[in-house]
Every structure is written in C-alpha cells, then in structure tokens.
C-alpha cells in the first residue's frame, strides 16, 4: 500500500463502492495506470466460492427457497418486497433491522440494498438500454429539471466501450428512441412472442416488440474468455451468482480486469463516513471510514475520489461531509444535493391468455424477457402526461405455480398440473418519473445508525404527472392486450412505492449551471474538481430505460476524463 510522507495510505484514486459503477471506475482507472483503492462497506464475496445456492435444486435447500417467516419479517421487512429476494439469495441483501432509514408515515420508500463486494451487480435484472436524445433533451424541452449538460453523441462512444466489455446481447432495431449498440447475438423470441409482436405492430404501428437487451454472454469475446467468462447456460438463476461469469457483474468482469493491472487495492467492511475536504486547496483529500467489524476509524488519502456508493449511499456520504465551506454537504453550494430523487414508475402489469399454440412449448430458462420500447410522446403526442414509458413483456406457459388457481383434487388435478398451462402474455410498465425538488433526502439531526452516521430521511412521492402516467401505463397495457386478441385479461393497477423498482436516481444531479446542479457533464463536482460521482445520483432525469448501462458509460467517461486531467496536472 503506497503511503505519503505522514505514513497514511495514499492512492491516486479512491473508489467508494464496488457495484456496477464502482467496478467500472476501478477497471478504467487502474487500466490507465492509477493506483486505486476500492472501499466496500459490506463483506468480501469471492466469485465462484461464495455462491452457496448456485445450481441447487429446490429440494436441496431446507425450505425449498422460502425464507423463514419470522426472520423475514424481522430482518428483511423491506428487502423481502423485492422479486429477487428468496431463500436462494437472501445472503446478498442487507439486514433491514441493522440498516435503518426514515420515511414519512404516508410516503413509504423501499430501499433495496446489497452490501457486499460486487454490490447489487450480483442481484440486478441485467437489462441494458441506451438513452437517446429524446431523453437528454427532455428536461430542456418541457422545463422539468435542468438541462442535461451532455447529448447522446457525447456518451455514445462510451456506450460502445462498456457494451463491448460487459457483453450485451440484443437485436439491431434502428429505433431512434432506443439506439442500437454493440450487441452479441440476441436470445430468440418464442413462437407466441413472435405472433403477439406481429399483432401489436399491425394494431399499433408506433409500437414494437423486441427481445430484451441483457448483459449476458451469448458469444463471448476473447477478452471475456480471458477473464474466465463463458456463454450463458440459460438457468435464469442469476441472482444466486454465476460461476460461468455469463452475466456481467463486478465480480465476474470489472474487478478481475482491475486486479490484473496490479494497481488495485480492495478493502471490504469499510464504511465510508465522509469525504475529507481541504479548505486551502479546495480539494477532496480522501475519505474517512469506519471498520464495520472493529469500529476503528481510518483515513485514506487520494488525489481523486469517485463516489459510486449507489444513489442514496452516495447522497448520504456527501451530506455527511461537512466543512466550513460546505456546511450542508460537500459540493453543495447549489443547495440541490439530496434533491430530485427519482425511481421508475412501475409495479403495473397486465396479463392475458393467448388462445392456441397448445402444441408448442419452449425449453431452457431464457434470462431475459422482451421489451416494448417507449412510444408515448415519441411520434404521437400524448395529452395525458409528459415523457413516456416502456414495457417489459413476454409469453410463457405457466407450470406448477398456477396450481392454487386450478380447481380439483386427486389424479385429475395431478395430471392437469403435469402439463403446462395455456400460453399467457404479460406486460409490465417502466415509466419516467419527473425530477421534483420536493422528492429529497436529508440527514436526521438526532438519530444515527450503529456506526454513528446520521440516518437518511427519504421523502419521495409520486406527483401529478407520475400518477397520470401510471394510470396510462395500466390503461394502455389492458387495451393493447385486448386489441391483440388475448382473453381473461387481468390488470394490476396499484403500482409500487418509490424505491421498489430499484432504479433510484438523482440527488447529485448533473447540469450546466453550478448554481442549480452538483455535477458537470463529466460527472465532476462543480465545486470540488477532484470529486466525481458516477452512480445513479448523477442522473438529471430518469428516462424510462433501465439505468445501469448508463451508469457504466458515465463512469467510464468520467474515469477517462479524470485520468487525463491528473496527467495534465489540471486536477
């Protein structure tokens, strides 16, 4: 470990967090020759060693993948709301009792977290969609939020860069609102998806059904093989961990790439309390951490700091980094730090039965479904709301899990459930939530967690445009399924509370004007030039695409900028 003249550890760069963004920061900075320290607040997880449920059949777990009820209610009251939380994956989710935060009684926010090396890159749903200028120009066009300081042309080469390395499977579609990328071969549609997709295109010329774009290797490159990654085996049990490294995670891809440079130091169980700031130089000097196991406090110094602690983790650290110049949080001269929190609008779905095709079935567990890219306010203006939404969708024949809905007992029931049910087709919406100053986080003045760090207060609510869009997502879904001949259509209109889409974004937004934003277009703090924020906190609007790919591209771009500035001596 390099040290400075006082003997304290000193690095070229500190990266806070080891999830999707942190892994990318580590890779890109170490590959440019920087000595990098990655700090992870959770435990170490070793690729392949620490995937205890991988490949296990249900009967090889004591409770068949169910989490004991009392433990779930006590320790995972929030996490258990996440679709991916099961007895197979619970060890990759935080304990809610030990990691409290506060929300108003009438405004729940479900904060889904995975504190471990690799973070939520182990748990993500792996959908990867580029933003387009429809998204980057949206704030300027309708006046909600501040104008993004970049456009698609600025980030497009970085999308190319991260897609090639991460490995994204997908199809080329030529859609302006959802730019194509550097894709590995797509997963195929099944016959019912093909048929329903054709019917949708006939009935709704502005809508298309395409295969999901997903961070899975379908044709690994030499670079990916060299990292020990292999082709996807279609288990669709990704959140348990994948020893094939077939889906992109920090553990399968970016951290091994950083490791092989010889420039990476990783410290786990290190909770970053704050970023240290030097008034004289106007620079961040490093970070203060608390050892999760010993509670010892330490300081790590570095020439630059990358915050990749996840949107709300980053916001909490920044708000807790106070100094004479920044009494309300580092790089917060604008007063916008902590504000404009967003999550996607969702938890709204419609499902129906597709008549016919009973002599057809699929095999293997494809790890992605399909996608109907945004169409509202693309070519056809919708009067009900601004911005738009996309649907994740797919066709399947439900198996045993439909059992409780099937009447009967005895041999007749058993034989009926031996066969798959009729084909169903379902769509689930992902809508753009507007940036709104009232949706914000702040530190509690009294309550602290077990480390003495002030609790995060979160007040995030769906506002007028959000609610109008949520209703439209449900209405369109139901009408679309009816129009393409589906039967027994059921629509779930309720919607999820903010947070549960696990696409939380904003709180340290990018912008052109230091008076109204925290970061510039290179993810660099306006007020503290050697501080970079490249996770979801940087988002100035949410678009409706799953955001992880954009975090990867922003991180790689910021790392390139930071390394060049260091070299040029301008930081």
């Amino acid at each position, binding site marked *: 470990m390099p040290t400075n003249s006082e003997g304290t550890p000193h690095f070229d760069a500190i990266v806070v967090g080891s999830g999707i963004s942190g892994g990318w920061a580590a890779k890109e900075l170490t590959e440019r020759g920087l000595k990098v320290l990655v700090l992870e607040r959770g435990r170490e997880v070793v690729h392949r060693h620490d995937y205890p449920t991988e490949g296990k059949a249900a009967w090889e777990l004591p409770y068949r993948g*169910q989490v004991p009820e009392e433990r779930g209610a006590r320790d995972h009251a929030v996490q258990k709301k996440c679709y991916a939380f099961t007895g197979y994956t619970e060890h990759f989710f935080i304990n809610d009792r030990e990691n409290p935060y506060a929300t108003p009684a009438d405004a729940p926010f479900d904060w889904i977290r995975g504190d471990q090396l690799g973070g939520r890159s182990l748990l993500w749903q792996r959908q990867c969609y580029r933003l387009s200028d429809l998204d980057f120009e949206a704030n300027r066009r309708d006046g909600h939020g501040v104008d993004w300081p970049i456009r698609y042309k600025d980030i497009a080469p970085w999308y190319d860069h991260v897609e090639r390395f991460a490995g994204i499977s997908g199809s080329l579609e030529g859609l302006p609102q959802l730019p194509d990328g550097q894709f590995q071969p797509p997963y195929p549609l099944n016959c019912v998806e093909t048929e329903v997709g054709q019917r949708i295109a006939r009935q709704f010329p502005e809508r298309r059904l395409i295969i999901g774009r997903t961070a899975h290797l379908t044709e690994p490159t030499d670079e990916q093989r060299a990292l*020990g990654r292999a082709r996807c085996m279609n288990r669709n049990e990704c959140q348990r961990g994948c020893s094939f490294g077939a889906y992109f995670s920090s553990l399968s891809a970016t951290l091994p790439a950083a490791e092989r440079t010889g420039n990476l130091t990783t410290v786990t169980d290190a909770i970053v309390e704050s970023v240290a700031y030097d008034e004289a130089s106007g620079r961040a000097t490093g970070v203060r951490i608390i050892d999760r196991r010993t509670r010892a406090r330490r300081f790590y110094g570095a020439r630059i700091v990358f915050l990749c602690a996840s949107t709300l983790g980053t916001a909490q650290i920044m708000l807790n980094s106070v100094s004479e110049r920044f009494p309300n949080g580092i790089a917060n001269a604008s007063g916008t730090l902590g504000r404009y929190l967003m999550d996607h609008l969702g938890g709204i779905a419609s499902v129906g039965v597709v008549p016919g095709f009973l002599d057809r*079935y699929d095999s*293997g567990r494809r790890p992605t479904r399909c996608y109907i890219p945004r169409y509202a306010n693309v070519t056809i203006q919708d009067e009900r709301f601004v911005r738009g939404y996309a649907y994740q969708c797919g066709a399947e024949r439900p*198996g045993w899990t439909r059992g409780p809905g099937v009447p009967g007992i005895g041999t007749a029931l058993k034989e009926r459930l*031996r066969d798959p049910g009729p084909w169903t087709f379902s769509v689930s919406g992902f809508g753009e939530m507007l940036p709104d100053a009232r949706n914000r986080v702040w530190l509690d003045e009294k309550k602290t967690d077990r480390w003495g760090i002030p609790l995060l207060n979160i007040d995030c609510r769906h506002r007028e445009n959000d609610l109008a869009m949520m209703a439209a997502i449900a209405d369109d879904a139901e009408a679309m399924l009816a129009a393409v001949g589906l039967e027994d259509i059921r629509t779930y209109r309720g919607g999820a509370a903010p947070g549960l889409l696990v696409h939380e974004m904003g709180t340290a937004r990018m912008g052109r004007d230091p008076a109204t934003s925290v970061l510039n277009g290179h993810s660099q703090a306006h007020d503290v030039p050697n501080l970079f924020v490249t996770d979801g906190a940087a988002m100035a609007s949410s678009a409706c695409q799953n955001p992880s790919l954009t975090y990867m591209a922003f991180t790689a771009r910021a790392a390139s900028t930071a390394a060049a500035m260091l070299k040029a001596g301008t930081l």
Partner: protein
Amino acid sequence: MPPESPTTDAEGPASLSRRRMLLHSAAWLGTAMTVAQWESIARAAAPEPPEAGTLFLDRRRFTTLGAAVDVLLPAGETPGALDAGVDRLIDRLLAEWAAPERRERWQAGLDGFDRLAQADGAHGFAEGTRRQQSDLLQRLDDAAYADGGSGGFYPEFKKVALFAYFTSEAGATQSLRYERLPGEYRPCLPYTAGDGAWFWNGYAYEL
C-alpha cells in the same frame, strides 16, 4: 494445488474439499468453467437425509396430514405426495420455517379435517374410507373455487401441499421435468400432452 482426495464418499468432507479445490483451481487459472467441471461441482453438493419422527405435528395431526395430501395428490403414473415426502416437508416447514400464527392455523386446520370426517361418521380423517376422504376434500375444493371462495384453511392446505410436492425431487423430475443446466434456450418445440411442464423455482413464491 492439493492432490485430489482418493476418497469418493459423495457426502463426506472429502467432497467439500474436492468442491473447493475445483472452485479454487478454476478461479486460479482464470479460465472459463466448463459444463463438465460445473456439473461435477454440483453433484458434490448432496441433499440432507430425511429425518425420523415428526418435528412439530403430533402423531394424530401428522396422520391426518398424510392422509389428506395422499388424497390430494395420489400415487399413480407418477409419484404421489407421500412418495415425495410432502407430509414430512410440511411438518418441517411448520417446525422451522412457519411463524406462530401459521403453526396454529395448521393445527386447527388439520383438526378441522378430522371434525368434518367425524360429521361423516368416521373416527377421524385418516380413518375414513378413501371414498369419504375424497368426497370431503372435493366438497372443500368446490367451496374454495365457488364465486367469492370459501377462504379458510383449505386453500392454504392445497397451496402448500402443491408447493411441497412440485419442489420435491420426485415431483419436479418425475411428474414434471427439470434441467439443472439447460445450456440452450429453444424457443419453439412441439408439445404433446403428458410430455411434462418444466420445473423452475425462481422468483419469490408466496406461500
């Protein structure tokens, strides 16, 4: 790298060290794991042996449970609930997994099956004739799927019993089909009734 252990006991500590060694060597070499390597690791992870005796339910209720799941999912062309250990799994879930309210519901619910059987003239559910047992469950099932549904214990009984059956090795691999490592996704295959649905236990399934 340590030499491979000569012991072949698939459930002993030797298999653990073999598993760790395979994992270590694959990671250490930085090579892609092959399917054969992965399957050899997966095979080394063996299920726990079944336990004797009951863990939670008393004898009477366990007997009632066994009779009821046997009527719900009898042996035939494919294994039945008892072949699949559905009664033992439910007993274990009640002992180790269930919250107190659920335990009480199952005790009362199984007692209820006995009381209904007594109303039909049997000593208890398990002592009734197969015909009586079947008629009783069918009545409960009809009521459960009638408009509005009957609520009560029966729908939970059926849901948990189906879960226990289809997540068992017998249910998943003999009544249904299971691929631990599919390899490919085949989007459009011919299907004939009786071929068998695929077993999968992926996202959260609320019992």
